[in-house]
């Protein structure tokens, strides 16, 4: 204990140096442990508060009486806790229907993406076939296209099929998107060929190799893709608002985007406070499913992105 094996690890050198007035001198490696650490924590804490504040504020305010939200936006009196904003919002806005539509699209579209994207990516990563480079080049180009470029013709296509305001329109376009293919190809490329060949020698069929060898190995990347896909579908807005904006087909995000009109439309003379209260209640409710999902799966999500993103 008395002697430290190397100068670098020992705390002995740091102790006498600490109180010296030579703060301007470039600090020695050992010294910068303590002071910048406090600075680091303070910086990260402030940033964290800034990142969480809007969400926390919205959820807390949703439980305040509507008039208090605009009269005193910063205060919160637990004694005046109320569910009025929520009951009024459920009365004025078809939000339950929005949740249902989003859930249906989420399950079907999510399943299509999570099955067919890795399958195609597997072919791109591990096989040679005619047209491979051409198709993959096209995938890369689509990655750069603004989604709005496709909106007009897609809408016309939906009209031709008679699909406007149907689930098909919400589900099929973009269901196996270029990003998923690109990302999964990166992930599957890292799977060693020997593993696939060994399975082949054992008499495994080509699909069997994918299903029983590749899928289990890439599970972390797949979990990341799952979270990202769920998020994208849940949050998708531009396409649903164009292709399926009828009351019957509106997804949660479309319902949210028309909140203000809905509230004022259903209540003649609805004042600003009422609208604000219902708006915050609806927004908080929409935040919660993804927040819960993310907090439960956060490790998979972050590791999934780490596993799949482009390496420097």
């Amino acid at each position, binding site marked *: 204990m008395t002697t430290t094996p190397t100068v670098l690890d020992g705390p002995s050198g740091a102790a006498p140096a600490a109180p010296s007035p030579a703060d301007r001198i470039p600090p020695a490696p050992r010294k910068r442990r303590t002071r910048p650490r406090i600075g680091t924590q303070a910086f990260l804490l402030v940033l964290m508060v800034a*990142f969480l504040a809007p*969400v926390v504020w919205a959820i807390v305010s949703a439980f305040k009486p509507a008039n208090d939200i605009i009269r005193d936006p*910063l205060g919160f009196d637990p004694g005046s806790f109320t569910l009025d904003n929520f009951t009024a919002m459920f009365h004025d806005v078809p939000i339950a229907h929005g949740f249902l539509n989003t859930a249906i699209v989420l399950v079907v579209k999510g399943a299509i993406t999570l099955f067919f994207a890795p399958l195609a990516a597997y072919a791109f990563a591990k096989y040679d076939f005619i047209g491979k480079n051409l198709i993959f080049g096209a995938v890369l180009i689509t990655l750069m296209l603004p989604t709005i470029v496709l909106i*007009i*013709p897609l809408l016309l296509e939906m009209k031709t099929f008679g699909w406007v305001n149907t689930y098909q329109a919400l589900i099929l376009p973009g269901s196996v998107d270029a990003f998923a293919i690109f990302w999964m190809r990166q992930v599957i490329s890292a799977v060693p060929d020997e593993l696939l060949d060994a399975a082949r*020698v054992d008499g495994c069929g080509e699909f069997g190799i*994918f299903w029983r060898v590749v899928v289990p190995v890439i599970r972390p990347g797949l979990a990341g893709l799952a979270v990202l896909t769920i998020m994208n579908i849940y949050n998708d807005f531009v396409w649903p608002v164009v292709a399926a904006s009828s009351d019957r087909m509106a997804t949660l995000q479309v319902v949210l*985007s028309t909140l203000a009109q809905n509230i004022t439309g259903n209540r003649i003379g609805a004042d600003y406070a009422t609208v604000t209260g219902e708006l915050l209640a609806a927004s*908080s409710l929409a935040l919660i499913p993804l927040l819960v999902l993310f907090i439960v799966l956060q490790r998979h999500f972050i590791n999934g*992105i780490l596993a799949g993103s482009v390496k420097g």
Partner: protein
Amino acid sequence: MTTTVLPSAARPRARRGGTRMRRRIAPYLFVLPFVAIFLAFSVYPLIFTARLSFTNWHGAGAAEWVGWDNYTYLLGSPAFWSSLGNSAVLWLLIVPIQIVLAVIVAVLLDSAKLRLRGMYRVAFIVPFVTPLVAVAQIWVVLFDQDHGAVNALLGLVGIPDVGWLTTSAWAKPTLALLFLWKTTGFIVIILLSGLQSIDRSMYEAADLDGASPIRQLWSITVPLLRRTIMFAVVLQTLAVFQMFAEPFVVTQGGPYNSTTTAGYYLYNHITRADLGTGAANSFLLVILVMILSLFFVRMLRAKD
């Protein structure tokens, strides 16, 4: 490429014709569902847009071929250029700040010794998983001039009310703030993945030389992270120039068109059923975005 002769293991496989045949056909079957969806909902619409951009079609009746008229109209239109200008200003307000902030946060979070590291990682990604439309609505309430929490907070330190969403000077910064808040956590995660591939021993060597943390950040981390940083810049450039939902929900492009971004201006053509001009506009946007991406990739190459 695959000409290296595999020892013995490869041979018996070759004799079993069925397996080989299946191996040849399999990839086509695997990509088929994707290719079908891709052709129907990406390639076909794209070709359709290209043709549409040379017509004056308004969604019904016969389309009239107008040659390059839509393109020359847009290139001579002040509204088109001002939409690009608005997006460029937003880019300047967002991307440089975001990259610097994300690099600093990622480097701090990368240290295994940092306390509460897991908590910070979760907290910073929370905005990214919140639905944009919900958050945009919250932004409207938060930044309201008379009743918003932001002005109330600033009022505590004596700053008079700011018209965040009602003046053209402040509307862009307010939208930029929403975008920064929403996406910075994701950029941090991308940069963290780049940091993972940096060899730790470089820092140990720098430590021995007595290089300060800031010096290490500038001379080791940033150069080695350059590719990942550029990837993030390209990603965010695409996102900023396509920005649509933010102005749609928060400002409806106003006040005085100050937040009519390139993406929102494009949407205006669609609502007016001016489909030919809209198609031409989208192609001009694609070309611009591709030029910008190539420019950043070039910058990356030049330094390599």
